[in-house]
């Protein structure tokens, strides 16, 4: 019956949840500026009050906020009231009902979810949106997840800069508009590909998806907006250590 419910209203609710999540999150953030670094269930969260009439009143009212490894917000109402899940859908094997329990184990990673664990049980792309999409739905501070700007590519030529900030903030792109369809979310992945060339860009691959002269400036113009040359590379490589993302694993593959 739960499955049926989700199937019938799921798609609509997913959209709703996506729209609701940011405001909810920001509200909860405002409320818990003094929150400890571990996730806590808020003071009034044990009031299981959604709709006593229909018995669908389970779940803390306030958002669950996990602070580790990055801040993630979970909203019970969307999943129970709206999506129709019961307590046991999740709290029987997937998540302990003890606050912060999943964090101590350290097992709840994006990689684990991709394997179908934790949220990934439903968030697999068919039951609910996949965990490698709609990042900002749960990662309310998505910008903190971004690698430090700029990304520096040195192959096939030295060197090309990419800044996340203007693309996500100024142009409002969501993570999954580029990841992983155009770019794998892994450092240096594009550079390893033989087709990471201007030719591919002109064919609409990689940056060329948007940089085609209509959505954004064409990739065969304004070369040196992105290309900084060897001299530019040598100049920034002095403080390149801070830009180095070698210790950053891909959260989705764990590599």
């Amino acid at each position, binding site marked *: 019956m739960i499955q049926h419910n989700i199937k019938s209203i799921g798609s609509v609710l997913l959209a709703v949840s996506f729209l609701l999540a940011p405001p909810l999150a920001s509200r909860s953030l405002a409320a818990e500026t003094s929150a400890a670094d571990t996730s806590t269930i808020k003071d009034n969260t044990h009031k299981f009050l959604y709709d006593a009439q229909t018995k669908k009143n389970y779940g803390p009212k306030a958002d669950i906020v996990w602070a580790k490894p990055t801040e993630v917000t979970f909203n019970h109402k969307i999943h129970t009231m709206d999506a129709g899940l019961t307590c046991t859908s999740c709290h029987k094997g997937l998540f302990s009902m003890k606050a912060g329990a999943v964090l101590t184990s350290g097992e709840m990673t994006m990689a684990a979810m991709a394997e179908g664990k934790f949220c990934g049980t439903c968030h697999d792309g068919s039951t609910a949106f996949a965990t490698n999409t709609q990042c900002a739905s749960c990662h309310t501070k998505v910008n903190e997840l971004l690698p430090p700007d700029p990304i520096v590519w040195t192959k*096939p*030529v*030295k060197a090309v800069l990419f800044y996340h900030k203007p693309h996500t903030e100024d142009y409002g792109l969501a993570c999954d508009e580029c990841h992983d369809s155009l770019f794998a979310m892994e450092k240096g992945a594009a550079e390893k590909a033989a087709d990471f060339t201007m030719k591919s860009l002109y064919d609409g691959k990689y940056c060329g998806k948007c940089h085609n002269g209509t959505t954004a400036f064409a990739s065969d113009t304004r*070369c*040196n907006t992105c*290309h900084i*040359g060897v*001299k*530019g590379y040598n100049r920034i490589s002095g403080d390149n250590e801070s830009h180095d993302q070698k210790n950053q694993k891909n959260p989705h593959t764990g590599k």
Partner: protein
Amino acid sequence: MNIEDLEKEKNEGIGSLPLQERREFLKMGLALTGVFLGGSILSMTSISHASNQKNADMDIPSEGQYPYPKHYGMIMRQNRCVGCELCVEACKQSNHVPNDHGAWRTAIQEKITRENSTEKREFRPVLCNQCNRPPCVRVCPTKATYKDPETGIVVMDYKKCIGCKTCMAACPYNARYFNEEKYAIDKCNFCIDTRLAEGKKETACAAACPARVRIFGDLKDKSTEIYRLLHTPDSKIWVLRPDTGALPNVFYMNA
């Protein structure tokens, strides 16, 4: 009759002037210039300032102004350059340029201008301009550097070089350096000994350029790309330091 007076005259058009007459006039003007500058024979057969032909103030050669059987030149499509310096690497390898700071036959210059907090980056490839009136050749006391009679390329006869460095002082383009290994002055020679001699059609730098910035070829051969680019109507073409009167064979354009 002098050139200044002639310049005040209304241009009667080249149509009304027989070719032979123009040539005679040209020769006279250049002979005078040549005498003043030390009587370089080369100056009598090169590009003219006095000939008010199509590009009077741009130092672009036109028909009949290529004194060499194969008149090699290069045109830089400057705004395509991304400063990757693959050309510099290729040149170093092909021509055994020592790995010293000041040792290069070709280089990429960079200019960064800031306007309203936006950075504008420009790259400019430079190399020996293989001038028609090469200041370096005139000043060399021992003819250690000379114009190759077949190609117009300014070449070195290393064993004759006494290392007085006058050619370095005379070069308007900083194209010459002291090669510690040869213990003589060295310079770009359009790969005449390393590639052209092997029948290759391009210099190492031109072949290595991923953006096809450098178009190398015989200015006399109407089938070459450089000929086409150089004689495209309305395209703005310039040379570096035209004021020195060196009459370079390396041209620049934006394409």
